[in-house]
């Protein structure tokens, strides 16, 4: 019994080993370069003045709920805000080494969106316009997309009991389809937002950095982050200072789970064979054990029988001899008796 238990553990050890190896071998060479003509927006934070016009335009375009404070109230900039159900975009203020900066936050419309890759009903899709679209008609409301989004963008209607939806910036896809600019871009009075083909935007951004190396960090945020995003950023200060994480790496999200998903067919393919083999071995061992037991029982029975036979023989022999003895003595006795009576008769 102890052997099988040790095997049991060893087997699990071997299995985890196999998983480890395949986990390491996950980096595949494939890279999705995005749709050729897909669009994006370049946000130059050096030009942003924090007027919140984009917020207001977005609110109007998407018919969102009334904000707590009017868009003209700039005191909200004192606090760091994130996107909400009623604000697909927010502008935050930062005190940096390069002075006060403002940065707009909204869905970055990733080239390989985490939200899309984790959705188990494919509610999110990367559209050829560049927009990452959401289909509320299939969404189950598991909120894994919110867990996965590295930029903390999607929000959820927790207070709707029957038809809650995930909310996020749409890149104003309906407007793009109609040949118009996204509402926030159109509203921006300072050209801090430019809409266009992502490739061209990258060129513009690079040119600005080359022309004013003293004004910009040599980094176009969104060019590589998480496999690249449609929304691109320029900043005078380190991006970390305006609350944009620089530790995200350039690996896209599908790459992160690729290894784990690749293990699935291996488990499905190998486990049953292995376990059936295990079962067969166990069964065989049990059969052998059973056979041995039967054999032992047989031998034991036979030995017992033999011993019993022997004993019986012995007993019979003994009994026989006893009987013989008894007969002998009886005969003797009878003879003696006869002799005695003869003697008495003679005496008479």
């Amino acid at each position, binding site marked *: *019994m102890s052997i*099988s*238990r040790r*095997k*049991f*553990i060893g087997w*699990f*050890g071997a299995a*985890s080993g196999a*998983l*480890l190896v395949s*986990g*390491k071998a*996950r980096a595949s060479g494939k890279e999705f370069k995005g749709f050729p003509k897909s669009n994006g927006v370049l946000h130059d934070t050096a030009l942003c003045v924090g007027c919140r016009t984009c917020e207001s335009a977005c609110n109007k375009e998407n018919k969102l709920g009334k904000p707590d404070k009017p868009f003209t109230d700039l005191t909200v900039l004192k606090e760091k805000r*994130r996107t909400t159900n009623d604000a697909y975009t927010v502008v935050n203020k930062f005190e940096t080494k390069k002075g006060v900066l403002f940065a707009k936050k909204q869905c970055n419309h990733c080239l390989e969106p*985490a939200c899309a*890759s*984790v*959705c*188990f*009903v*494919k509610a999110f899709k990367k559209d050829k316009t560049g927009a990452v679209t959401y289909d509320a008609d*299939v*969404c*189950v*409301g*598991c909120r*894994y997309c*919110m*867990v*996965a989004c*590295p930029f*903390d963008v999607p*929000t*959820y*209607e*927790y*207070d*709707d*009991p*029957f*038809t*809650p*939806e995930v909310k996020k910036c749409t890149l104003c896809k309906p407007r793009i389809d109609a040949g118009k600019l996204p509402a926030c871009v159109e509203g921006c009075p300072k050209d801090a937002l430019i809409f266009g083909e992502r490739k061209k935007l990258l060129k513009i951004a690079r040119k600005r950095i080359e022309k004013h190396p003293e004004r910009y960090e040599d980094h176009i945020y969104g060019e590589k982050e998480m496999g690249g995003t449609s929304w691109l950023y320029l900043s005078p200060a380190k991006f970390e200072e305006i609350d944009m994480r620089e530790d995200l*790496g350039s690996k896209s*999200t599908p790459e992160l*789970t690729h290894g*784990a*998903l690749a*293990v*699935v067919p291996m488990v*499905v393919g190998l*486990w*049953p064979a292995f*376990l*059936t083999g295990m*079962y067969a071995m*166990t069964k065989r*061992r*049990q059969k052998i054990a059973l056979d041995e037991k039967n054999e032992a029982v047989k031998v034991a029975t036979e030995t017992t029988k033999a011993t019993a036979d022997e004993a019986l023989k012995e007993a019979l022999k003994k009994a026989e001899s006893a009987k013989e003895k008894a007969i002998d003595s009886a005969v003797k006795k009878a003879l003696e008796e006869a002799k005695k009576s003869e003697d008495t008769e003679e005496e008479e």
Partner: protein
Amino acid sequence: MSDSTTQNRLLTPFNVVAGAIVIIGLILTFIRFTKGIGSVTNLNNNYPWGIWIGFDLMCGVALAAGGYVTSSAVYLFGMRKFHAAVRPAILTGFLGYLFVIIALFYDLGRPYRLPYPFAVSPGPTSMLFEVGLCVALYFHVLLLEFFPAVLEWLGLAKFRNMIHKLTIGLTIFGVVLSTLHQSSLGALFLIAPSKLHPLWYSQYIAVYFFVSSIAAGLSMVIFEGFLSHRYMHDKMDDVHLEETKEIPYSFGKAASLVLFAYFSIKIIGLIADNNWHYLTTPYGYWFLVEMLGFVALPGMLYAVGSRERNYTLIKIASVLAILGIVLNRLNVSVICFNWKLPLAQKYIPSLNEVGISVFMITCIILTYRFIANRMPVLYEHPDYKDSEH
């Protein structure tokens, strides 16, 4: 029997408390389904997953691992002498998964769309798709595995024997499915390297979840054994009593090996990612508490307890190991998630949220008691005593 004695038998302290929890649970259920998730939980946009996922789902699935661990040990690895432990383990596994699914109904925004991932718009690139598929299938496997007990109870011998023939196939299928979804639950978090603390995030997280689920399963079998011996002794037959005597020691020894293996692969992960420097931060201390107090310590207690046949040590070890699993799953999904977020913005479950989770546990215990009081779980049905499995 007079009315007053019936009343006395029903009015045990346990029943009173359980009854109160059920009533509160039903009220909360009503609020949840009429006013929305937000009305009972503290979930927010930074914390889309709270304890209904972190505890009810993550811990529920891990702690229900006793089913596949026991049935594979007995049927596939030849530990026949523990046969009596299979049915109770299958029953708890089944109830565990049943209530995981019920808890999901509370947590999903649109629970009525639960079949959508399979029937309407499958998204197979999602780890959650894999989890969902395997959990759904495994739930049915457990149902079939437990069915013989129901059919014996109902006296449907023919049908029972038919299903019984499937035992080995079902066991193998169950192990495959369990391997997949136990590990995938960990792999769910592979997607969030920027949000989960590096001491818990690892490329090996799927393996961690799988290996620790074995320890969880073994510990739960030991712990449940202790509880049912204490509270349902009268339902056990001699075979059960005899066979389960050895279980704490054998399973305890196995659990100690698994826990030590788990401990070592966690260290390997730490080395691979070169995360030593985090150990001297508050999160690092917390990590050490989990690893030393709830992995290494129960591992050691199990080892000593099984060698010296000290039942008390084994019991303590099983409780620690179970708490350790709960702690680990909560750390990954809630406590060490969003670790860069300021403390003030961190999620703390609301009382109502906790209430629903307690309600779920209570329902599991009540259902278990209901079934074990009626069906042949802790004893063998006299008609089937000599059957092979």
